[in-house]
């Protein structure tokens, strides 16, 4: 690998200073499971790597003021072993849990997955479906933004130069609100999602949907929030006509490409299949919560 400088700041302010002061290309390192692959393949050639894992709070999960606050560099294994988060948002945990292998989950983080901005990122659909906000630090100070505003295209984010994500604020679910995430891959593990789907629903006491978010991954340059799919669910139980409408809305929202992982036709069909299956799990969970 080509030579690169490395710094491990121990505070947010120090990290901001280091990133602002970088003369060449500086990349933030949390888990490294995308960054190091790209370094190795020569896809990116940074001059400086800034490791955020030594900043207090960047690794860890806490509950505060109606939110789960997840440090940006928290590895997937910590998410799956957090009982409260797993119970509240199993879909987010499932999504993170599906990134790569057990070894990858020992390192991979929500921030890395989001900021790598692959359309097929597994943790992103459910994170967006939950209406997560992210806290960003940068030269101009701190700001908050919706997670769904971060990815602007494959490999591109809305973060300004020198900015990085400090934490994820996931709102706690309401009663009878829950989520699910499914993806389709050719094998049973270890593949990039051909299609991913995160669904977040809120039900009333009778099981009718009062709120919904359906988010598709890997079917467009960024994840797609499918408004028509949500509309198909709201006001309905998950009966056959609702499922059919959901399927159709999901398929219609797809703008996929044909690449080595899937064709346009196939991704579109699977988007419909996954929307139905994911919604079924989300409804079942929401009813039980």
């Amino acid at each position, binding site marked *: *690998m*080509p*030579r690169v400088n490395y710094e491990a700041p121990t505070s947010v302010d120090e990290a901001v200073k280091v990133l602002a002061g970088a003369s060449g290309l500086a990349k933030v390192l949390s888990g490294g499971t995308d960054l190091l692959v790209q370094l190795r*393949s020569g896809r990116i050639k940074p001059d400086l790597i800034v490791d955020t894992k030594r900043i207090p709070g960047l690794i860890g999960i806490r509950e505060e003021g109606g939110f789960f606050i997840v440090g940006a560099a928290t590895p997937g294994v910590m998410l799956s072993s957090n009982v409260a988060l797993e119970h509240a948002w199993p879909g987010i945990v499932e999504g993170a849990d599906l990134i790569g292998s057990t070894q990858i989950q020992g390192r991979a983080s929500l921030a890395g997955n989001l900021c790598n901005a692959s359309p097929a990122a597994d943790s992103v659909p459910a994170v967006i479906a939950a209406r997560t906000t992210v806290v960003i630090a940068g030269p101009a100070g701190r700001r908050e933004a919706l997670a769904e505003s971060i990815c602007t295209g494959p490999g591109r984010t809305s973060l300004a130069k020198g900015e990085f994500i400090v934490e994820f604020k996931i709102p706690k679910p309401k009663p009878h609100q829950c989520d699910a995430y499914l993806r*389709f891959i*050719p*094998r*049973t*593990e*270890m*593949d*990039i999602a051909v299609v991913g789907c995160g669904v977040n629903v809120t039900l009333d006491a009778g099981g009718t949907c009062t709120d919904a978010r359906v988010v598709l991954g890997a079917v467009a340059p960024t994840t797609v929030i499918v408004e028509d799919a949500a509309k198909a669910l709201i006001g309905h139980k998950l009966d056959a006509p609702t499922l059919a409408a959901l399927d159709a809305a999901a398929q219609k929202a797809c703008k996929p490409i044909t690449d*080595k*992982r*899937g*064709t346009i*036709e*196939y991704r579109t*069909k*699977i988007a419909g*299949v996954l929307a139905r299956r994911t919604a079924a799990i989300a409804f079942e969970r929401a009813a039980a919560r």
Partner: protein
Amino acid sequence: MSYLDKAALKVVGTRPIRPDGVDKVTGRANFGADTVMPGMLWGKIKRSPHAHARVLGINTAKALALPGVRAVITGADFPIVTAEHAHVGAAPANLRDLSRNVIARDKALYEGHAVAAVAATSQAVAEQALDLIEVEYQVLPHVMEIEAAMADGAPLLHDDIFTTGIEPRPTKPSNVSKVVRFAKGDIEAGFREADIVIERRYTTKPVHQGYIEPHACLVSVSADGQCTIWSSSQGQFMVRAYTSRIVGADIANIRAIPAEIGGGFGGKTIVYLEPLAYMLSKKSGRPVKMVMTREEVFRATGPAPGAIVEVKLGAKKDGHITAAQSILKYQAGAFQGSPVQQGCICGLAVYDFPNALTIGYDVLCNRPKVAAYRAPGAPIGSFGVESCMDELADALNIEPLKLREINGAKDGTKAAHGVTWVNIGYQKTLEAARATAHLKAPLGPNQGRGIASGYWHNAGGESSAAVHVNEDGTVTVTEGHPDIGGSRASMAMMVAEVLGVPFENVRPVVGDTASIGFSASTGGSRVTFAGGIAVTQAAQKVVEVLKQRAAVIWDISPDAVEWRDGKAFPAGANAGSFEPLDLATIGNRSARTGGPISAEVQVNAQGQGPGFATHICDVEVDRETGHVKILRYTAIQDVGRAIHPSYVEGQMQGGVTQGIGWALSEEYIYDKDGRMENPGFLDYRIPVASDMPMIDTVMVEVPNPRHPFGARGVGEVPLVPPMAAVANAICAATGIRLRDLPMSPPKLRAALDEQALRLAAE
């Protein structure tokens, strides 16, 4: 002495822990990349980004000037290997082609073809130096697909290849290097006799052997030309021979040491790095270490070919096949030599076809030169034939297993390629399949069961072995075969059996080229067979020596000594009443009874027994996604005699799993410029642990009388049936016949949608 009676065996057939096992589970074992030498440099390779291009010039000045760079080489540094010198001994490779594959000369023939290499003081410097090498290419049109490469006006890879095997001999060069043909009976008459004739076309993509260890070597050439090569390969004698020819060195000046090898499956039966490291070491005066990245393994080492297989079968209503025809076209890659001939032979070899014709074409194209992959050629040919057998069974409304029982080869059957079978176990594999609980187990919705059979010749050939009795009576057996699957344990077991001592008293050593006699490569499922014959004969010779030494100690005639249970006994009361002498006693006194106790044997083993298998596969299909799950798999194979049953089972299970990957998810994907799009384990998808169920194995033993213990080769047959077994199971589950590998979810889903439309229209 005959060891064919299984009941009399004490060691062979048991499951001792392998002698190299502790090193391998603790990380101590040294593989190709695990060694260093003082002063070592790192070597890296510059590769063509073009699928087909003339190399007009290479400017290495800037690279050479980079601090830390100690040598740069190009094709010009290597001697030209002429056609007359293209073969070394009986080794199979064409060295003229291999030398041009190892580094390009006037043309780059595939993306990834090596064009230059550097040696530098660190990997980072070596990589930097590669960027400073300036190569001027004239990009040429490239051709990737078989039919395009065969067509008139196709871009031509070589201007000196004229198709052999057709009359009249062509005068224009071609991308088809040869046509092979085997025929039996009268094929036209055979089809006329048939009540039903079906004709089908099957296609496959290239797949890689997928060994987890990338190629690696460390080569040191000293100023007087003596050279040590440390590398992992399927044959240290092959490494020595091929390197010597490619670099122009005497064989005796090269000592090739076999590192432990992290998988080969045929893909490491040739060299890629050693000649380059040799030249870099010679030029720099320092040892040079080279390790391929995974990307290089995919872009530049040889896969199994993609292919077109057209099968035509004709049969009577009662299931007797009257005619079988197969036409195979295999990609050879950048140089000639795909295993199309084996594909032709093996696909049909399972059956007794009264009339048969098989024709094979070896087609060059701008892809890496194909390399052997576990029963090379046979898996592809059998995918076609075994799928077509199933389609025929369906058309005749006969159970697939029954169709094979009716037409299967038996002792005395003459195969289409001319061999008459003797002592084969195919029918027994069918009987064993019939007897499995698997075959009768009920299936649920969207589930289906498929069966398929397969054949591989196995190989014999040259092996050497030495058995030494040490001063304390323990035994060392030195053999010349890299151990890919546990063979050194089997060698020690056979020696222990002959000597009558516990397995733990015999230590096997895989010797380097200076320490043991010539041994052909580990491959062709030959080591337990040929290596086994060598070690057994060596051990038997040692027994004769031991008896003779006992005779000296007792001062009686050697004819009056017998050897039993690890000891010398007087043969009968007339010989005298002496206490038995064990190996420790005789070994300790060897200097006083005649000298070291040792025997070395060289064999050119013949009579390897062919291997047959029948597999049963259950799948479950997710109709909405096209995903196929393997529910259950049973592999039944005639193994002759399982020397170490765990390792035989392991070969079967490993081959099956590779076959499932080949069937469902593995393929080379190229873009329109002939560049590989998936050169990594992320998108080149081999089965992972969660993809597989347990794999049941049934070892049928029809001993091969040409091996002292009855062994047959077992390692390769397991890869022959799985793709058709899976395809047949998918058809049983869905009614969909997929004929293009891999049978990936999008293809199955598309076929299911089309089926749904057809059914709706009816």
